[in-house]
């Protein structure tokens, strides 16, 4: 509680839970006991255990600066989308179109960067993402279509539009070296992609835990009707989360395109969407809305990432990786539902 106000809130640190509004509340909840505690801490314990196991595993190259930095770099796009997705879930929605938006913005930006200014290409790409997200938001709020269905349907539309842009071809911009600088430049041994991700994570963390907008997001997801009667413009808040989610998906898509200087309408897609959702949910943000935090998403995404990294480094059968992931996801969601049942 009495953590001194740090200059930058470090959302990754679980110590921050005490400052996040849900933290201390659960402690004073009668009967929450061990389960409540476990739920609060959530994924952080298995994450630390797995991290240590991989680090001390004989002959493992896991605990190595190059490996860890590369891991962070690789997870940049996933984390950017997941950070924004955390807002969508907290406000009581879900966005299944991020994989498609990722591809659409990537092909548009890459196509523009082939000939024009990379800066303009990036800005336009992100704005297209924001626009697509805002459209999702309008459909899911003012037209009252369940966001799960609305964004699922939109994902087909978006993928279709992306294919129209590319005519089904791979878009290549090998000559646009300025565009490559966007993700590949290194500063203090860390890529700009990772720096961008860190920036997004911090901004999302501050918005959620410190701003009026963030409070309204929690309120909208916790009890939309109560929030509306308390004067919160619930529809606009939800719409904003979808717009942010779309913009983040666009930014992530452009970062990945800038890495390889090519883009395709087939990139991203459902695989990316579900990786992102899995990361958020494994972290402990509730799919029912009203609860969650950015550090959870960071840990959740990285947890899934180090499982994959571990399987690769230790040369385990990658077939088991999928099974492991599925079981962990079930445990996370099941644990959430079960602890709700016991404590509420």
């Amino acid at each position, binding site marked *: 509680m009495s953590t001194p106000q740090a200059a930058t809130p470090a959302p990754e640190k679980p110590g921050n839970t005490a400052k996040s509004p849900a933290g201390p*509340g659960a402690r*004073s909840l009668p009967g929450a006991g061990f389960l409540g505690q476990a739920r609060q801490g959530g994924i952080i314990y298995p994450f630390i255990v797995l991290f240590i196991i991989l680090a001390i595993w004989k002959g493992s190259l896991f605990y190595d600066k190059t490996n860890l930095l590369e891991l962070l770099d690789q997870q940049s796009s996933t984390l950017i989308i997941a950070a924004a997705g955390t807002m969508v879930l907290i406000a009581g929605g879900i966005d299944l179109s991020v994989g498609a938006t990722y591809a659409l913005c990537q092909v548009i930006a890459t196509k523009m960067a082939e000939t024009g200014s990379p800066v303009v290409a990036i800005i336009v790409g992100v704005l297209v993402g924001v626009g697509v997200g805002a459209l999702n938001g309008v459909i899911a709020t003012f037209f009252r279509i369940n966001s799960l269905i609305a964004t699922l349907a939109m994902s087909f539309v978006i993928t279709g539009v992306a294919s129209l842009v590319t005519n089904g071809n791979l878009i290549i911009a090998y000559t646009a070296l300025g565009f490559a600088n966007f993700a590949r430049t290194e500063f203090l041994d860390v890529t700009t992609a990772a720096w961008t991700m860190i920036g997004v994570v911090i901004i999302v963390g501050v918005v959620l835990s410190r701003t*009026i907008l963030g*409070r309204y997001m929690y*309120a909208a997801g916790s*009890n939309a*009707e109560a929030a509306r009667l308390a004067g*919160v413009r619930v529809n606009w808040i939800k719409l904003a989360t979808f717009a942010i989610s779309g913009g983040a998906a666009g930014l992530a898509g452009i970062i990945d395109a800038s890495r390889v200087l090519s883009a395709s309408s087939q990139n991203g897609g459902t695989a990316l969407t579900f990786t992102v959702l899995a990361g958020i949910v494994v972290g402990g943000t509730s799919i029912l809305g*009203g609860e969650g935090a950015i550090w959870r998403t960071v840990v959740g995404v990285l947890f899934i990432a180090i499982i994959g990294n571990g399987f690769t480094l230790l040369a385990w059968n990658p077939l088991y990786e999928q099974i492991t992931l599925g079981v962990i996801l079930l445990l996370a969601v099941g644990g959430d539902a079960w602890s709700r049942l016991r404590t509420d």
Partner: protein
Amino acid sequence: MPDNDDNLQGAHVELRDIAKSFGGTRALEGISLTIGRGSVHALVGENGAGKSTLGKIIAGAHVPDDGQILLAGEPVRFASPRDAIGRGVILIAQELSIMGSLTVEQNVFLGVEPSQAGFQNRRELRRKYNELAASVGFALDGGANAGSLRTADKQKVEILRALCRNAQLIVMDEPTAALSRPDVEALHAVIRQLARNGTTVVLVSHFLGEVLELADQVTILRDGRLVQTVPAAGQSEESLMAAMLGRSLDAAFPPKRPAAADARVVLEVRDLVAPGVNGVSFELRAGEILGLAGLVGAGRTEVARAIYRANRVHSGTVTVSVGKEADNRQIDVTGSPRTAMRAGVLMIPESRKDQGLLLGRSVRENVSLSTLAQVSRAGMVQPGAERRTVRDVLTRVDARGGGQSARASSLSGGNQQKLLFARSLLSDPTVLIADEPTRGVDVGAKRAIYELLTALTDEGLGVLLISSDVEEILGLAHRVLVMRGGRVEAELDGEDATEAAILGAAFGATERGA
């Protein structure tokens, strides 16, 4: 005590010393009565007298805490409604459970469909349905889509469903509350038909005329206790109402300081029309508590929600007069709760759990939600300022327990209600609408809420108080509006505001104040 000779032959159900509490609140106590086979037995009483609860206990939807139920002379203890259905006892609740996407006959035989090797036998279904419908004289097409039926016909579907499960006793909770006049007549004919065929009907109803017309016996409840069970034949609406009256005052009310006669009008409502509200006009003065009484479903909550723009409003004006300068602000017809708040009206909604609180969030977040801008700079909430503001207002409403970081769900009902008061007060309202502010809170918290309401009016707030508890209205309100059918049936002031007058107007008795 019921007459013993009466029980021997025709007793279908006998209740002995039934008691039931809901979380510390006594709903029923010491209820003993006998319901004759093939009779229509009515349960009447004010809001909260316990008639619905008693109906549900008879039908197995509630399990009594104490006492015994004898069905055909045999002690029974229903574990579930399903258990009761197995013994021929069926409840038709106020909220009908019709599957809109199925046909009438499918609804009727739901779960007991005639089938062959797991496949539905449609022809057999139709034949059995027609047979059943004819036996009670219903002309209702079995193939029709149940979702598109009128409410009265849906009720018929429920009744047929009960009959095809060999119901011998049907408990109907306010069956005519949602019906238009011709449909009411139709349903009355059905109830008479059922009784003629030997089915026992327990009728829970607000409508005394209906009760007198249909019932053989009437049980009058007051405050969870049985006043008397009498044959309907010798009764009149006046005699039934007289028996419902006269509750003891069990919660003390703070002294009423009458609002100054020349106090300015802070809220003026003119010809308000909205769903459930058919042209309501009234004025509320500064420092006044205006009670809005009436039966459940009379449109009280609808008026509140229409003023607060929580519901869509068709027409009418709502004007708020703010501050010493009497700055008149109209709330736009197309406005939202946010608009109403800005104009100075705040509402504490009827259901604190569904419409009021963010149960999973902290006390602090719940209280500051409507007024975050006051404790923020450039969109950033200032934790220190927020904590101080919330602490001050919590002291003002005397909310206790848990501290600011506790989850709202961990607080008692009374304290949860105080959080909503605290949230409203931070907006510095001119008019406060409190819809059932003491529902489900214990006696101590009730008293605290009464004092709070009185204190607020002393500060010049106008309060619109909605309550189903007539005693509460009488104890607190300076003036009472009684609603019925979405209109203001009566305005009662001072000496005229008596329980008899309120009930008379609420039940639509012709002689007001009788």
